[in-house]
């Protein structure tokens, strides 16, 4: 599969009479957008625009997405949600680079996810660097949480798809080409180089803990081989609303960093042959089954090494270790990416599971580390949630408007796909 990503740099996002892309500025007709995303399950829908450096706090952030549109090749971005799940990953896709679509709303009482556009908190989230179209949504009275989550998820996808459309006929500022050949061919392409694959584990456990592959609830899949470019076209999306720091947003999936960084080395010092999407389920049997199956697939692919990533807290450590142990047992080298819950003082053990085979680990940092975020001028969402969000303290919200929290409350702070430069170390 060969995919051209045409990047269009977004200079600004503004409301306008017509939804269009003009001189690098994305104009959004607010009324039309609201009409497009209208959903009988949601009441008060509203849209806002925030820029990097603005004194704005957004909370609780459910998902962040990046506008992408399929210009040529089969299917649509986010396959399965708006079509019959045609295979994606080929042809050309346009990307509005530097822009995010953010969905905000409380699905359940304790929901978390802070994005600060300025101040010290901004350093911890990649989304402070984007111009964000923020969509605020409340549910109608009596709506069940499952439905609420689904509705808000669809709003994000619809809004993103609507905005992305403006880039269809634009001239990209940069075009990047990514190509993976069918496995048999790809394995033979660089005979001298080590063959490498990526095991991409997704949080899949239930309400607020789900991910979707081609719109299929990924807890129901067995690990499966896909082309890396399929991920770039939105084959994997997030339905995960908890553990803000280490849930993978849809934006993370679209820009899945291991995939892009493996491509950076592709043909130079390694041969990147494919991605195995796996899951993280509730039962131990499911965990054993998925890791057995992933190890079998990886072995049958004939690769020399894999990177294994994780999503979430606690039980995924078991999936990570099972995958590692079983793949290493096949004589295949592994590198893992995780994050840590080492306590506020960093003195506790970081993971809930461990194995001697896991001798090459990259960590995205200690999610229990504490930070004080000063008061910002504007709040979008519900800042009262801060007192009860994950990682909050009793009285987290101080009289001066500052909040003291663990960084686990900040969206994307310790992303386990390795999206950030921050990481863990020891003294």
């Amino acid at each position, binding site marked *: 599969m060969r995919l051209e990503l045409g990047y269009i740099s977004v200079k600004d996002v503004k409301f306008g009479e017509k939804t269009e892309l003009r001189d690098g500025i994305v104009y959004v007709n607010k009324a039309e957008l609201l009409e497009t995303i209208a959903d009988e399950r949601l009441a008060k829908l509203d849209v806002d625009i925030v820029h990097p450096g603005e004194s704005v706090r957004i909370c609780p952030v459910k998902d962040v997405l990046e506008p992408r549109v399929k210009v040529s090749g089969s299917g649509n971005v986010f396959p399965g949600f708006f079509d019959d799940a045609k295979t994606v990953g080929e042809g050309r896709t346009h990307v509005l680079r530097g822009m995010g679509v953010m969905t905000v709303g409380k699905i*359940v*009482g*304790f929901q978390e996810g802070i994005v600060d556009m300025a101040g010290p908190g901004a350093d911890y989230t990649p989304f402070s660097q984007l111009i964000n179209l923020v969509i605020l949504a409340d549910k109608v009275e009596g709506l069940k*949480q*499952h439905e609420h989550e689904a509705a808000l998820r669809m709003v994000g996808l619809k809004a993103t798809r609507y905005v992305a459309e403006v880039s269809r006929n634009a001239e990209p500022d940069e075009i990047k080409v990514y190509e993976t050949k069918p496995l048999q061919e790809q394995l033979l392409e660089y005979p001298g180089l080590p063959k490498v694959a990526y095991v991409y584990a997704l*949080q899949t*456990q*239930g*309400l*607020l*803990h789900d991910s979707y592959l081609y719109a299929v609830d990924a*807890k129901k899949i067995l690990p499966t081989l896909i082309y890396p470019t399929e991920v770039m076209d939105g084959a994997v999306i997030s339905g*995960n609303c*908890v*553990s803000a720091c*280490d*849930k993978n947003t849809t934006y993370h999936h679209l820009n899945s960093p291991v995939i892009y960084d493996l491509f950076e080395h592709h043909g130079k010092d390694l041969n990147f042959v494919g991605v195995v999407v796996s899951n993280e*389920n*509730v*039962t*131990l*049997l*499911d*965990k054993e089954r998925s890791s057995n199956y992933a190890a079998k697939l990886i072995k049958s692919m004939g690769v020399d090494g894999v990177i294994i990533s994780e999503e*979430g*807290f*606690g*039980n*995924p450590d*078991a999936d990570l270790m099972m995958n590692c142990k079983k793949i290493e047992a096949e004589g295949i080298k592994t590198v893992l990416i995780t994050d840590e*819950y080492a*306590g*506020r003082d960093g003195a*506790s*053990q970081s993971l*809930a*599971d*461990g194995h001697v085979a896991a001798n090459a680990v990259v960590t995205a940092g200690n999610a*229990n580390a504490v930070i004080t975020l000063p008061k910002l001028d504007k709040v979008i969402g519900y800042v009262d949630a801060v007192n*009860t969000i*994950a*990682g*909050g*303290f*009793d009285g987290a919200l101080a009289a001066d408007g500052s909040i003291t929290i663990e960084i*686990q409350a900040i969206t994307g702070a310790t992303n386990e796909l390795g999206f950030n430069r921050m990481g863990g170390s020891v003294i």
Partner: protein
Amino acid sequence: MLTEELLIVTNNPRVKEMTDFRHCWVEGECREVIMQAYNFVAQGHQLISHPLAGSIKPNQNPYKSILISRLSGEVDIAALKLAENCLRKAEELMENKIPIDLNVAYGQDLQLVDQDLLLNALQSIQEGR
């Protein structure tokens, strides 16, 4: 597995209402539920669901339901170790307990999320029987 072969160790009132199932009711918080499950595993019960299922930390959600087998047999050392590690992690996190007013709708939400993780586990094992 059949419904009657299962035992739910729980402190979640919402799960207690699932009358088709056998429960081991635990008075206490998340840690006590994990402790109880750990004790069962030590006595040879099978550990069916991961004690730290879900990404909500033990100090953020007091409700916890863990699925084990009703009958006991040989002790599964790997599962026992897993349960012990989970217990340790829960204890470490409980040192920084987050105050939660369970009397508001919020408590219901926490119960619901815990129950949903359990339901997903149940669905998985019942499809596999």
